[in-house]
């Protein structure tokens, strides 16, 4: 049992860092393009450890994110759970894809994430009318290689399994 749960704290620490990055103040002209750090990190762990990280972790970190953003309770939780569900379902295919193919899938996944957030915000009546809300999907996809190498390095170094 102890053998299996090795290095769990690395996952938690990376999620915490992602949350910090997600609330770090940005200048206004950059605010729309803020990458979805938490979603990126979650996708990585879902692909790397699908038997351990999944919908439940996504749900809990999504709830934390909702409170951090002051969003409707459940907005990020819902979006991230869907994201985790899809990446756990796709992990076998994603692992053999080339880097930029993966980035393409990440673009789609985060696009879906943004779309769900947008729906919930529209229920609340504060959604953005233009397609600007899809910009984070693009920036996140561009950052995917960086996140991948960083987290893979961490995982190998700490032998997270």
């Amino acid at each position, binding site marked *: 049992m102890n053998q299996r749960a090795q290095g769990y704290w690395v996952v938690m620490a990376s999620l915490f860092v992602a949350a910090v990055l997600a609330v770090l103040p940005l200048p206004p002209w950059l605010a729309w393009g803020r990458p979805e750090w938490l979603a990126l990190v979650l996708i990585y762990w879902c692909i790397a450890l699908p038997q351990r990280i999944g919908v439940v972790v996504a749900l809990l970190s999504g709830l934390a994110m909702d409170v951090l953003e*002051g969003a409707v309770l*459940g907005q990020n939780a*819902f979006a991230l759970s869907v994201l985790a569900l899809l990446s756990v379902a796709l992990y076998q295919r994603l692992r053999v894809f080339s880097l930029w193919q993966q980035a393409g899938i990440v673009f789609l996944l985060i696009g879906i994430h943004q779309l769900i957030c947008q729906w919930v915000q529209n*229920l609340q009546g504060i959604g953005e009318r233009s397609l600007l809300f899809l910009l984070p999907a693009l920036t996140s996809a561009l950052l995917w290689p960086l996140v991948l190498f960083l987290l893979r390095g961490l995982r190998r170094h700490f032998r997270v399994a």
Partner: protein
Amino acid sequence: MVVGLITADLRFNGLQRTRALIDTLVLPVYWVADIPSRIGDWKETHFVSRTTLQEESERLRRENLILEGRTQQMASLQAENVRLRALLNSSALLRDDVLVAELIGVSPDPVRQQVVLNKGARDGVYVGQPLIDASGLMGQVVDVSEFSSRVLLITDVTHSVPVQVNRNGVRAIAEGSGSLSALEIHHVSATTDIRVGDLLVSSGLGGRFPVGYPVAEVVSVERDPGQPFAQILARPSAALDRSRHVLLVFTAGQAEES
């Protein structure tokens, strides 16, 4: 389950307690995210030249003198005001107490204009409490956790504040536009006397905000003959995107209610 949660939070207010609990748990995230600006502040206070400090101290001393001079008059003016109000049989104005708080985070979502403060339930902060900075009204508290609270700024699209024109007392409602630099005033008929440059102060109607704090300054008035109402834009007086030290106002009688 999540869909249920979303509806519950949208339609009812029963989740305040849960939200406050999670808020207390995730506070370290804001605390860590605030470290860079803390370092910036620290650098500003520790690495300044002697002459700058001297100049600043000189300037502050001058400012203090001027302000003290004004306060001397204020005591007698206040007494006079109370007398006149007594003559008019209207209720006395009470001085408001304030609590100094520090900004520790802003909402990462560009469609929400919210900030997080480092004072919470432990310091007596309550939901609905008004927030001001040195130059005007900023917003009101919407969520309170143990050590922090979340404030909705007056420029959020879901926020409105009752105001009146300082010059002539015309009442209106200033609604947030979603941009930090503009408030919109709707439903003011085209013949109303509002001009560019007018100062809008909080009117105290609605009982949420105290009377007389500056809210915004009118920057444009458009009167289209085809429209029943004038289109008015105002710029908030408070430095919504710059203030770090802010004041939470305890209005008399409201703190005990909630």
